[in-house]
């Protein structure tokens, strides 16, 4: 069963949260940001080309114009492939682990899988980030020596920073599955 709700990110951009329950102990939560807007793309392109035309008017060197075209094309490709994240999803499988995937606008997907033995808890933490205090969801990894200690913190949904109401939904869904792994017997 799938469910989709609209929320806002920390900077006010509208995002959507999609929840799918695959089975009793397996859930997928995907946060999708807005697509690349035509107006921001054309604004950036015209700004670069106007600057290049200004330089050309000053220096009378036609290489400036072709360089500007190259810069625009290559910059757009780099932005779509390395910077613009369309969707970040979290797949929680109760007995297996947690998988975090980010899919970029050019189609590239990068995934990280953390097995359940290493996961201590999924919590909402608040921290100072760039002159703002933001809430963010993070996975706490267990320290192998010290059962109460935390060895590493993996922050989630870094590029589409959802606000607290969206994070609470994701937190509740994750906790429902994480609670069950304590009562179920650990196998291997």
């Amino acid at each position, binding site marked *: 069963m799938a469910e989709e709700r609209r929320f806002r990110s920390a900077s006010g951009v509208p995002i959507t949260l999609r929840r799918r329950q695959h089975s009793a102990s397996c859930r997928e939560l995907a946060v999708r940001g807005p697509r690349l807007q035509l107006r921001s793309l054309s604004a950036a392109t015209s700004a670069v080309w106007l600057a290049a035309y200004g330089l050309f008017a000053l220096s009378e060197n036609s290489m400036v114009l072709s360089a500007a075209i190259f810069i625009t094309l290559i910059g757009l490709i780099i932005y779509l492939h390395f910077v613009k994240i369309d969707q970040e999803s979290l797949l929680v499988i109760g007995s297996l682990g947690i998988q975090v995937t980010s899919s970029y606008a050019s189609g590239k997907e990068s995934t990280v899988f953390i097995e359940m033995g290493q996961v*201590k*808890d999924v*919590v*909402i*933490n608040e*921290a*100072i*980030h*760039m002159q703002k205090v933001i809430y*963010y969801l*993070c996975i*706490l990894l267990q320290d192998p020596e010290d059962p*109460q*200690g*935390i*060895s*590493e*913190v*993996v*922050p989630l949904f*870094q590029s589409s920073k959802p606000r607290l109401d969206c994070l*609470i939904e994701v*937190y*509740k869904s994750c*906790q429902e599955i994480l609670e069950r792994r304590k009562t179920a017997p650990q196998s291997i």
Partner: protein
Amino acid sequence: VLYLIWAYIPETWLFSLGLTYWPQKYWAVALPVYLLVTVGIGYILLFGINMMSTAPLNSTDTITDNFAKKQQQKKFQEEAIPALRDIPISEVNRMFFLPEK
């Protein structure tokens, strides 16, 4: 006071008094300017140092601390205010976000 005297009296008068080995008059203006620019840059530098020493989002410093890890549990006494301690973040989260209305 010596600084003001040196800055204002022209060189020829100082020479006639026999005091020849003073720094060039250029420095009378340059040093205050250096001081003020340092103060201005100090503002920006302090801001930058603050931003750099803020813990990044993926560090354990945002969750716990050396002191919190070594704290001791005090025994629970009836009818007394519980002792102050650092509550682990999982408990805090559960208390804030889990109860249904």
